[in-house]
């Protein structure tokens, strides 16, 4: 009996020391529920996460938050109190990311968000985002408009936060480029018709129309514009850069312009795009594991989390031991100061003032030719 007790005590001591030495990462993802379409590919990529970085064992603890911010908060609390994680990854959707940001602040744990989340200024310090913000995605669109002599644009977007953020961004950047937004129309994903909005836009007759919608929802307003005989350029945003746009839009979306992150179009990137090599690496490895055509932007963000860790961990390990508040602070400082870093999704440059970080080299403008996305030369 005594022997047994001794063994248990020894085993516990060993376990405690290894747990102390390893780097623990808490990951909360929406693997089930309405947003599981975004969370599952992220989870798939994290299954390929390296077991060891800089000679240190990595424990990736992945929990499901069922697309529910409440569950995400529970997961995050568990991570910081029981697992004593050194860094948080997640959530994979904005609402969960926003809900766990206060916990990141309270426990002074850095958070790499896999969703584009805006947080109050006091929480900003611990939150870093992997997806691109609207500023860098609007940049290639406005540049292309300037180059092709577009003077007036119309806006046709969702009546939700996605539409609103784009409207603000495009008004700002287009305004700076001397392009006028002459008509702003809104619609909802489940609307049965966008004909009235299309009518109004065609009668305003701008040189180009920006359609702000996601996936298969982006096709309906696009088709309505074509049906009403709109002849100008039509631009789509990065949420529409999926095969669903072409599947539903068919020949009506031919020749339109779609902005995208570089990760999913890896092979097609021009040789001088900084992310080319990294993006190709991501796509090759992901498709080797999950089948041809399985690539997607969400898994790309998870891949980028790995690049960030590989760059930041060795430095932080020199400063402190994993599992300590000093180590967490060293990680945070390291991420903020890691400088220009090539990710599969673009070029990241986090600074103390900017935790979104992508530079304008990031976005790529595509056009639809014969049902395929092709990079605009």
């Amino acid at each position, binding site marked *: 009996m005594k022997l047994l007790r001794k063994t248990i005590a020894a085993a516990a001591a060993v376990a405690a020391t290894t747990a102390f030495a390893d780097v623990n990462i808490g990951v909360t993802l929406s693997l089930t529920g*309405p947003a599981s379409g975004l969370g599952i590919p992220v989870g798939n990529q994290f299954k390929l996460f390296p077991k060891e970085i800089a000679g240190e064992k990595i424990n990736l603890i992945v929990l499901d938050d069922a697309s529910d911010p409440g569950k995400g908060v529970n997961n995050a609390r568990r991570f910081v109190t029981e697992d004593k994680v050194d860094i948080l990854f997640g959530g994979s959707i904005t609402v969960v990311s926003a809900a766990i940001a206060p916990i990141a602040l309270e426990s002074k744990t850095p958070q790499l968000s896999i969703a584009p989340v805006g947080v109050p200024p006091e929480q900003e310090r611990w939150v870093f985002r992997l997806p691109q913000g609207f500023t860098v995605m609007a940049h290639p669109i406005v540049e292309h408009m300037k180059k092709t002599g577009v003077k007036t644009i119309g806006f046709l977007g969702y009546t939700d936060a996605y539409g609103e953020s784009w409207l603000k961004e495009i008004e700002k950047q287009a305004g700076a480029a001397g392009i006028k937004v002459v008509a702003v129309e809104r*619609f909802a994903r*489940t609307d*049965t*018709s966008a004909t*009235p909005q299309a*009518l*109004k836009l065609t009668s305003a007759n701008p040189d180009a129309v920006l359609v702000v919608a996601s996936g*298969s929802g982006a*096709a309906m307003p696009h088709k309505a514009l074509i049906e009403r005989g709109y002849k100008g350029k039509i631009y789509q945003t990065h949420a529409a850069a999926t095969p669903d746009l072409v599947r539903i839009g068919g020949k009506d979306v031919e020749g339109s312009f779609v902005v995208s992150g570089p990760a999913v179009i890896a092979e097609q990137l021009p040789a001088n795009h900084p992310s080319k090599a990294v993006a190709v690496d991501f796509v090759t490895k992901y498709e080797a594991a999950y089948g041809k055509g399985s690539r997607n932007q969400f898994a790309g963000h998870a891949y980028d989390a790995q690049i960030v860790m590989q760059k930041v961990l060795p430095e932080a390990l020199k400063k402190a031991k994993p599992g300590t508040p000093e180590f967490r602070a060293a990680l945070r400082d390291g991420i903020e100061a890691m400088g220009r870093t090539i990710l599969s999704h673009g070029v990241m440059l986090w600074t103390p003032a900017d935790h979104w970080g992508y530079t304008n080299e990031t976005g790529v403008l595509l056009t639809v030719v014969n049902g395929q996305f092709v990079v605009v030369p």
Partner: protein
Amino acid sequence: MDATIASILALDGLSNGAVYALLALATVLVFAVTRVIFIPQGEFVAFGALTLALLQARQVPGTVWFLLVLAAAVAVQDLAAGLRHGQPAGRLAMQALRTLAWPVAVSLLAIWVAPKGLPLLAQAALTVALVTPFGALLYRLAYESLADASVLVLLIVSVGVHFALVGLGLFFFGAEGFRNPSFWDVRFSVGALTLSGQTVIIFAASLALIVGLWLFFERSLAGKALRATAVNRLGARLMGISSSSAGRLSFTMAAFIGALSGLLIGPTTTVFYDSGFLIGLKGFVAAVFAGLASYPLALVGALGVGLLESFGSFWSSPYKEVIVFSAILPVLLWRSLRDPHGEDH
């Protein structure tokens, strides 16, 4: 705005309104016969459109598995009730067979023919055959045992059924939307107006269905039985009309109308698993115009909602839904001033 724009808007509004009209008729029908405010009416629209879309993609639609699960649940419910009342085994078996025969047969047919890629019209017929039995099954599972409950309880059940159906819709159809091919790919030009074949089909099908419903209620025994139940449930029961079979029939018709509306609207917009709710809700607004009682008024209300929506989105697209749903307030006021009566249950 000039006459051209106004006429294009009117056409767009009326063709949406025609679909809302069908849903409004179904809502009025179900309420009149069973006192159920049937919020999930719109879900049948999404189920219809998405089932056809998946058949088009030569896949077995999720509706098939859903239908089988639902039929099995109803059969088990019947069995439990039968055993509790000590009914003979032969009768129990007959009952189960009656419940399961149609869903199983049509499901097997769908599984067999789905990969073959039938012509569009045959797929449309199969879609209607798959979605229609949902009506009676849902009624038996969720409402029949509560047939004498208050309108409020039935409404709460409806909300629950709506959430269940939307969630299951996401599970069976996935998050992405589909757009169906047009049944008739032609365009007519009338002045500045372009009329697509699908618009003509929407008008023709709505009209045919309305006339069909009228004939059904005026000329057939089953239709008269439904009307009798709607006027006075107790009286109809004393005359030998089963109020539960009247309920099943009205829900079956509601599902049929819903599936058909889905087929009509599928080629004109992208339908998602959750698209049905707002479409159904607009049908419901139209039904409220009619005080949930009058079919012709529901038709007028639905066309009005379609027009209001179309002109509303032209003038001020961000506030389109606000305009449509606020329009219900003056109507409610007018109705309550016109016939002031207390809650009658």
